[in-house]
């Protein structure tokens, strides 16, 4: 079988085409938002938001049933946005460290979610899909949701790019410039929350963090400026989504895991290259 054949062959299956579109979109989207997550050190928060969606999904399954994808998406989205705003609010006001506040919300919501979903018959399958994703089960309706909400996130990043950069880079400057810094901070949290929900079906909660931070970190090693980091990161995310899905097709491994392992491979390749470049530079500088 030729290389071209091995690329084209899986596309005979509609579920593979949909899966590919989903994986590539999510890979690209996660890297864009992930660039801010990486630079602001919000990795833990991203992971926490992902896990905290569970009670929302359980609520959706209990009220609308697991067949109603739109309802489940709505429940997940509502929960994620609420949790993101709540974490920001607690981090601002509570007298505990921000990571502690996030951890408390994270653990509480996850436990609540497991408690709720354990009352549903056959919850083990729901839980596995939630944790590890089910990219090959993506429907056309899901793709529309991914496109609409992912597109909205990208549009907001594009429109408020320079403000998001200032708020991430130098909060004090944001305040002396009289930017609505708190509003932009919350906007960033909400963008992370929406991205997590959009990506949920592709990689699942367990591997969500990787999609947010790994391609963006790889790009951080390769790019000099933030716009380049975002572009390179999303290209790597898209590429990882595609390669990972093909690997999972031919080697019959879990798709989410395959995608993440590809992103990790890119990261270590970039790490090796960048350290070699640094060593070279140090050497040539004497």
């Amino acid at each position, binding site marked *: 079988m030729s290389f071209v054949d091995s690329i084209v062959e899986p596309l005979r299956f509609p579920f593979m085409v949909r899966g590919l579109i989903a994986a590539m979109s999510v890979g690209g989207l996660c890297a864009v938002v992930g660039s801010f997550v990486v*630079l602001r050190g919000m990795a833990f928060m991203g992971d926490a938001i992902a896990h905290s969606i569970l009670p929302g999904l359980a609520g959706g399954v209990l009220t609308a049933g697991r067949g109603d994808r739109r309802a489940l998406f709505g429940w997940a989205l509502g929960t994620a946005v609420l949790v993101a705003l709540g974490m920001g609010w607690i981090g601002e006001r509570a007298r505990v460290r921000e990571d502690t506040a996030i951890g408390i919300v994270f653990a509480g919501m996850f436990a609540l979610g497991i408690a709720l979903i354990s009352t549903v018959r056959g919850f083990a399958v729901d839980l596995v899909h939630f944790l590890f994703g089910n990219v090959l089960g993506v429907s056309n309706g899901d793709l529309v949701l991914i496109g609409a909400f992912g597109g909205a996130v990208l549009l907001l990043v594009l*429109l*408020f790019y*320079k*403000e998001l*950069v*200032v708020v991430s*880079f*130098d*909060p*004090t*400057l944001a*305040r*002396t*410039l*009289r*930017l609505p810094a708190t509003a932009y901070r919350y906007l960033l949290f909400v963008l992370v929350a929406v991205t997590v929900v959009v990506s949920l079906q592709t990689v699942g909660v367990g591997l969500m963090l990787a999609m947010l931070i790994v391609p963006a970190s790889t790009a*951080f090693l390769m*790019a*000099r*400026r*933030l716009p*380049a*980091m975002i572009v390179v990161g999303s290209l790597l995310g898209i590429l990882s989504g595609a390669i990972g899905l093909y690997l999972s097709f031919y080697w019959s491994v879990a798709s989410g895991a395959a995608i993440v392992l590809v992103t990790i491979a890119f990261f270590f390749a970039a790490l090796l290259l960048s350290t070699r470049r640094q060593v070279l530079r140090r050497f040539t500088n004497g």
Partner: protein
Amino acid sequence: MRTRKSWAASIPSRLHSRGTVHLAGAPAVAATALTVTIGGRPALTDVTFELAEGRQLAVVGPNGAGKTTLLRVLSGLLPPSSGEVRVHGHGPCGHICIAYVPQKSGIDWRFPVTVFDVVMMGRVQRIGPIRRPGAIDRRVVQDALAAVELSDLARRRIEELSGGQQQRMFLARALAQEADLILLDEPFVGLDVPSRSEVLELIAAVRDRNVTVIVALHDLGIAATSFDEILLLKRRMIGHGSPRDVFVEANLREAYGSCLHLAEGESGTVVVHDTACSGGGR
């Protein structure tokens, strides 16, 4: 009427439309009975002073005297417990013409931005949401970089800058912001002597732009030789005026106690050695 600096005269007026219009005839800074309490303890008590436009003021005092607190209040970042700040006749929070460079800026120096990018950040509010920087913004940024002699390093990543270059970049950002009041907190800490005098010269050069400058520092020698006015602080105001008027023995003993050695210089000026038993001095 206040006059616009010559370098900005060519810039279309729409850029000045944001923020508060300055009150004609009002001093650049007027603080009245400022009192700040942080965590139940007084950080500043009853500080009152005025500063005319274009003047350069050094805020000095021992560690914990409230220098940083004063700058934060003047910038509008910290509301005073009582008393009032007026900047060009208005409360500080309405202004985007105040630039504040904290001592510990909390910046991640590995952030993938260039010197140009950081200076452009000073213009974000003037550009306005959704819009992108235009030709005018780029020119203002280039002017600001030229003013602090950083044009050559515009494309450098910020992690590659030396301490003096970092301070110059922040100064350029304040200029790009078109700030009329620049607040610098300990800009000389950690700088070697050549870069210190470089930054000092650049601060002095800002005078041509009619910008008011307030610098918190602990080096009394720099304060005495390079600034128009001194504000001596030890949680309350001990003195405000010209260096000669403020740096008298009684004031200095009150501020620093016995940790200070005074000596008469050749020209009759008081040479001050801060032995800094409170720590932090060099």
